[in-house]
């Protein structure tokens, strides 16, 4: 008689995150009664090295052939424990993660007894599932050794160069007719005072000298097909006789950048033919770049008093600020504008020391190296500061700016101004075609959303797609360059092995059960993931899964009238057994 499954169950305390609420010893003891459970243990941190070592030892010496860890969300540690199984010589997919932290201890703090009962049910279901689990093999796909970088601003250029130097062929695409992106708008950059044009020249020169980089300017990315290791990027040239081409790439780096916030008509007097003149910071910067002579003149008038209003288009509050067309306000901080404003003001006062500058702000966020120095310089040059909040927004009218100032305990202040500069924030650049064709995730702030905001900052949930620079959120040149190099590094790691491993949890068809009804085809949302083929031996058509394109959503499984389709690792039999375990009595 062959022996049944030999399951090891490990219940994690997670310091006290779990064990303060769930009686972990009781969970282990209850699971010990299950006929398939051979070993049961609880431990302070299962994810720690000694925790993993417990599992490895039991596989080696106790003959455990399947493992259940009842701990936190699988998003955190599934990989950790799979690799522990692998190190012990066991198929890594003979593992089930039961989440008794996010799903139990964190949400049932007040009720220890029922939390413990729930943990027991969930863990039993995990045992039932893993007992019916087949050993699986990761899906291996070939990796096209090319990186496609979309957007040739400073982040895109830096990413392209970094990847090319790493030995990877690169296609760098931009819709504009030259590289540089928003850096082209600047004269000098903070905090180093380097000429923006010099920085662009340096990068452009390096790109020109790098024969692994193909640069496509005046080109639009129309859409992307395929999957990690094998993307097809459709590119359309702009202008007359526009030709289209397809670029095959193993990895993508999205560097589509930002756009400046455009104030609404009338927002702080913007876009209205009134005194004072109201400009945005980028507009004012380009005005300063021109030769303005001995006096600062705007709109034909000498300017003696300039007020800068901070946080225009940033840190907005619903109900106070006018929303964007999607109904949402920009509730985020744009990070760079405080320092950018002081940088501009210092340059303005160096040239026109007689001008009086007023800064109307919420918080001064000059956080980086050399940023606070710019703030201090501005103070020393006689800039006056006023602090506002959302209850007393500044009002620009009749040559005056009125604001309730919290630096003078809420006094209403009236400032005579000839010019108001709106320190505008950042909004994401146009990545709508990528977001549409690849279902790229965007956050509530509309910027592209990384996999994990803390630990995996330059990768998207879409396998093989990296982000660099302000497509992800506001950042400055230095931060964009760091992100770009990090993204190139992730692409290099991905493509360096020639092939890529994917999770095996995809649909599989039992050919003998499939009657060719094509119901599954009607449900499948993923292009080319499921196709019908003629059987060489004759008979009904057969549904065939492209494992690299299938995402394992299970829509096909649900509609198959003959139970011919199953998800590997998530079979209907497993679900049946799990449901039985979940509804069974606890003790």
């Amino acid at each position, binding site marked *: 008689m062959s022996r049944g499954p030999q399951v090891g169950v490990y219940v994690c305390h*997670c*310091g*006290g*995150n779990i064990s303060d609420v769930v009686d972990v010893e009781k969970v282990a003891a209850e699971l010990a009664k299950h006929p398939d459970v051979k070993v049961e243990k609880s431990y*302070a*941190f299962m*994810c*720690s*090295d*000694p925790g*993993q070592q417990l599992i490895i030892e039991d596989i080696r010496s106790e003959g455990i052939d399947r493992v259940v860890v009842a701990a*936190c969300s699988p998003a*955190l*540690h599934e990989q*950790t424990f799979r690799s522990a199984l692998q*190190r012990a010589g066991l198929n890594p997919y003979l593992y089930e993660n039961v989440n008794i932290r996010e799903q139990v201890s964190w949400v049932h703090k007040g009720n220890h007894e029922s939390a413990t009962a729930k943990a027991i049910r969930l863990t039993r279901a995990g045992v039932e599932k893993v007992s019916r689990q087949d050993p699986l093999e990761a899906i291996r796909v070939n990796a096209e050794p090319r990186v496609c970088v979309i957007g040739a601003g400073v982040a895109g250029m*830096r990413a392209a160069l*970094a990847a090319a*130097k*790493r*030995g990877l062929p690169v296609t760098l695409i931009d819709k504009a007719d030259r590289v540089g992106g928003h850096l082209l708008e600047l004269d000098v950059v903070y905090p*180093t005072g*380097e000429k923006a044009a010099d*920085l662009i020249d*340096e990068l452009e020169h390096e790109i020109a000298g790098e024969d692994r980089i193909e640069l496509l300017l005046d080109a639009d990315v129309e859409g992307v097909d395929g999957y990690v290791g094998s993307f097809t990027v459709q590119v359309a040239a702009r202008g007359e006789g526009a030709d289209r081409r397809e670029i095959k790439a193993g990895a993508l780096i999205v560097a589509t950048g930002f756009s400046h916030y455009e104030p609404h008509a009338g927002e702080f007097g913007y876009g209205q033919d009134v005194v004072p003149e109201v400009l945005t910071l980028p507009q004012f910067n380009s005005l300063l770049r021109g030769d303005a002579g001995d006096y600062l003149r705007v709109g034909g008038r000498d300017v003696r008093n300039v007020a800068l209003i901070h946080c225009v288009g940033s*840190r907005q509050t619903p109900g106070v600020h006018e929303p964007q067309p999607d109904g949402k306000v920009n*509730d*985020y*901080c744009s*990070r760079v504008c405080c320092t950018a404003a002081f940088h501009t003001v210092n340059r303005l006062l160096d040239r026109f020391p007689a001008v009086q500058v007023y800064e109307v702000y919420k918080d001064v*966020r000059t*956080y*980086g*190296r050399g940023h*606070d120095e710019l703030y201090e310089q501005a103070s020393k040059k006689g800039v006056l500061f006023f*602090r506002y909040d959302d209850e007393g927004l500044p009002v620009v009218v009749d040559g005056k700016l009125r604001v309730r100032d*919290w630096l003078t*305990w*809420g006094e209403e202040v009236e400032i005579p101004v000839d010019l108001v500069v709106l320190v505008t924030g950042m909004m994401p650049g146009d990545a709508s075609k990528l977001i549409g064709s690849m279902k790229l995730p965007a956050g509530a*702030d509309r910027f592209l959303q990384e996999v*994990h*905001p*803390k*630990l995996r*900052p*330059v990768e998207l949930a879409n396998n093989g797609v990296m982000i660099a620079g302000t497509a*992800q*959120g*506001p950042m400055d*040149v*230095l931060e964009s*360059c*760091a992100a*770009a*190099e*990090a993204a190139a*590094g992730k692409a*290099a*790691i991905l493509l*360096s092995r020639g092939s890529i491993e994917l999770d095996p949890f995809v649909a599989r068809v039992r050919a003998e059960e499939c009657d060719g009804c094509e119901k599954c085809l009607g449900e499948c949302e993923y292009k080319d993931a499921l196709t019908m083929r003629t059987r060489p031996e004759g008979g009904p058509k057969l549904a065939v899964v492209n494992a690299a394109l299938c995402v394992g959503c299970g829509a096909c499984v649900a509609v198959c009238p003959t139970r011919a389709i199953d998800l590997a690792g998530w079979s209907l039999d497993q679900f049946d057994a799990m449901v039985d375990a979940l509804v069974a009595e606890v003790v």
Partner: protein
Amino acid sequence: MTCDALVVGAGIAGLQASLDLADQGKRVLLVERQPSIGGHMINLSKVFPTLDCASCITTPRMASVAHHPNIEMRTYTEVDRIEPVGDRFRARITQKPRFVDEGLCIGCKRCEEECVIYVPDEYDHALGCKKAISIPFTNAIPQLPVLDMDMCLLCGACAKACPTDAIDFRQQPITEEVEVGAVIVTTGYETTPMDAKKQYGGGVLPNVISPFQAERLLAPHGPYGGVMRPSDGKIPSSVAFVQCAGSRDASLGVPYCSRVCCMYAIKQAMLMSGSLPVADITIYYMDIRAFGKGYEQFYQNAKAMGIEFVKAKVAKISEDEEHGVKVRIERQDDGCRPEEVTHDLVVLSLGMVPAWVPSRDGIVPLEEETDRFLKTRSILTPSLTSMRGVFAAGTATGPKDIVDTIVEASAAALEVANYLESQLAGAAR
């Protein structure tokens, strides 16, 4: 020993840089002066703005490093000197004695159980105690105890209890020479000292604690199993955070912003409000610098939770006869009047200073910026230091948060990989 890259410091920057380099096929030697890898991050309760449990997200990185075939680890080891030799570097490193034989120890903790001497627990920032011989903390890597020889009575109880005879009272430092192609400095930060600002109690008031101590009070596996004030174990009904207690203050020699203190204070305030639902929680600040992705929203959530933000620079901190903490402020938002407010517990939001100055003692002559953190070469290449072949990432080049550190570490790994390739190509020509 020969390696492609030497990574100095195994905090989150060093861990990430090592992993990314090793994943690109480079052989890495990772050196850490503490007995465990993990840096400050493993010591935190939760991280902003996701409120992920720090242990839970740091341990997998630590374990990946420990198991990576391309990474060699040396813990409890100091770097004595790094000198260029041709296109490569020779480094001298010294492993400090743990008084435990690494090859024999099985991490069973019997020595720890038998030891009779209690010493302050550094992992809990002296809020709790541990044995004079102990594994640094539950999820430490490696799982090797360290014997505190200054406190040891040499009673021999640990040696008697050890099943593998691993205790070695005569263990000596071991010095090793290694040859590497490149170096990454990820030596991180330490906080400004608690006693730096005399007006803030000079580091002797029991209920004025450091942000690291606050982290341990808030950690689920912390020393008291909850938030209590150190002087008498009272559950605080009023907690205050004093911002810029070690930053933006020229009198401390720290004129710069430490970038993380606003956010960690807001996070700690939120966690305090979870642990102490009826307590009043106040943050005294100059500017709230919630500039990172999702940080402003986090700040607004904290305000909505009822945490009170008061724009006021704290002038003086003293205590009453019950060790209540008296905070003297000038309220800017309410008539600009001076006021003295008493809190049960006060957290000083300390700033960051470099943990290691490589040029000191001539270890390796890297240039520093005026802020004493390492100088980097250009805003286009943030990981290049003043010396060719030496790179840096994370808080070694200035204060920054975990996510910015991780990005820089990955960027540095890429730069190093490219540098090593160019060296190879140069050698081939």
